[in-house]
């Protein structure tokens, strides 16, 4: 564990003196290794280590804590600061329905998250409608229908059609059904697929969602910054969802995405069922990343 490693690296610094660039160099190497092993992006780690060094150098080593504990506390505080605040606030409409658009790479957990979001809103007295804008993946529409049925949430689909039209018509359908929220499930796509990214921009421009979320797999490695950044540039989404966090991934992608895009992480996926959704807690995420 990191604290243990730092304790042994810094054991000759106990009880006196200041932290200097020289005497913490070894510790910074250990911290860098821990963050890279946790899948935090290489450049994000570089900047982060610099900020830890800036905050540590000159600090007096107190008698009451070990230097290792001091550095870990600085690292933990800096991580929490960088990871941002805890919020599940979703933008909503002055006049219903509110429209939430769910986007991300293939297989990240979007369709499952749409069901979780519908269940989350239902438990708060809202009346959601699910819209099937994935017209490509075999049985994608059936998948959303099955999920909707199990939650008693209506599903709007037009089979294989134009996602822009489907999204637009789903909103009219929501008004007819007196649903106050429309959740748009979109097909997984690569950030470098120009045609598919343009489709998302067209849906955004035509259907005008109030909230756009980027759903990312919690096991994503160094590539997290590329995908998150490109989706942010094209869509300027409002928040991030990190899925499959019920495994043992350290989840460094959370730090990478937050550092590079500045977007808040709003939800965590913690399982396959519709209730497996949690609010993001930066302090818990920080200790998870540090291992």
């Amino acid at each position, binding site marked *: 564990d990191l604290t243990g490693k730092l304790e042994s690296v810094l054991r000759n610094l106990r009880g006196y003196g200041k932290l200097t660039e020289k005497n913490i160099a070894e510790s910074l190497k250990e911290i860098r290794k821990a963050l890279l092993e946790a*899948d935090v992006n290489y450049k994000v780690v570089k900047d982060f280590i610099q900020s830890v060094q800036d905050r540590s150098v000159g600090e007096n080593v107190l008698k009451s804590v070990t230097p290792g504990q001091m550095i870990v506390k600085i690292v933990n505080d800096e991580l929490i600061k960088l990871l941002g605040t805890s919020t599940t606030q979703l933008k909503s409409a002055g006049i219903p329905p509110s429209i939430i658009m769910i986007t991300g790479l293939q297989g990240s957990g979007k369709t499952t998250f749409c069901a979780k979001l519908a269940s989350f809103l239902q438990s708060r007295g809202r009346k959601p409608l699910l819209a099937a804008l994935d017209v490509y993946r075999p049985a994608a529409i059936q998948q959303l229908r099955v999920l909707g049925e199990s939650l008693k949430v209506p599903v709007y689909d037009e089979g294989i059609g134009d996602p822009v039209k489907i999204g637009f018509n789903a909103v009219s359908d929501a008004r007819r059904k007196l649903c106050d929220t429309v959740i748009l499930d979109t097909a997984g796509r690569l950030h470098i697929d120009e045609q598919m990214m343009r489709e998302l921009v067209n849906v955004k421009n035509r259907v005008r969602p109030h909230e756009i979320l980027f759903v990312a797999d919690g096991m994503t490695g*160094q590539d997290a910054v590329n995908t998150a950044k490109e989706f942010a540039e094209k869509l300027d989404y409002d928040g991030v969802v990190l899925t499959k966090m019920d495994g*043992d991934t350290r989840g460094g992608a959370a730090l990478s995405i937050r550092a590079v895009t500045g977007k808040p992480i709003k939800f965590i996926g913690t399982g396959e069922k519709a209730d497996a959704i949690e609010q993001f807690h930066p302090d818990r995420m920080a200790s998870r990343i540090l291992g």
Partner: protein
Amino acid sequence: VTGKRKIDEELLEELEELLISGDVGVETSIHILDNIRTRVKKEKYQTSEELDSLILDEVKRLLDFDPLNLPPTKPCVILVVGVNGTGKTTSIAKLTNYYKKQGKTVLLAAADTFRAAAIEQLVTWGERLDTDVIKHHANSDPAAVVFDACSAALSRKTDVLIIDTAGRLHTKVNLMSELEKIYRIIQRQIPDAPHETILVIDAGNGQNAINQAKEFIKASKANSIFLTKLDGTAKGGVVLGIKRELGIPVRYIGVGEKADDMELFDPVEFVEGLFE
């Protein structure tokens, strides 16, 4: 790779950044850089091209693999496993297409009875590829589907039986023991089966893929990796760590969402992609 002519600390740092940015991981990157340092001390080279080819060769060596000698007996049974959303079902469509093009008969087993519309997804692929799918209803016992599929493959004398399983996180003990049970059923019904257990890994995954590989080898003797979504910008470098620590090679790669978007793994191309 580097346009440089000599190994110095700056070059090694550049290489380390390339490797780690490609998800090769800290330990394996250190291992590769140490090997390069050692080799450079021993060998004479003049040009930056020679240095480049030394570096590429050193990384490629880690990925070399022997072919799986699949038996001529029928059916050849392929079990497909992996964590959620990596591309198992789609990769099975690609393998079906690959074997059919070779003139082989293929049978599919829809043993993901849990996820919404998982059976329908495989059935749709089966229809597109004119291939039969053994299936039960949703939420039925996956072991029963596997049992029936093995019997069907035997009685039909099918060349290749490919079994689709539900995505499962390797940390879920009950799901991993379900997989062990599926493995035992296959073993009992067909001698030497499963002949290949393909672990499907998403090229976008980071170091967690090593833990995935460890557990899936334990539960289902995974002996091949199908590395998917290499048509994105992720490099999939974690397979170097998996090969080094656990010995299983990549044999197939996925480069898109269609049935023909599959290639046999080429270590040279992979390493060139890593250093792009």
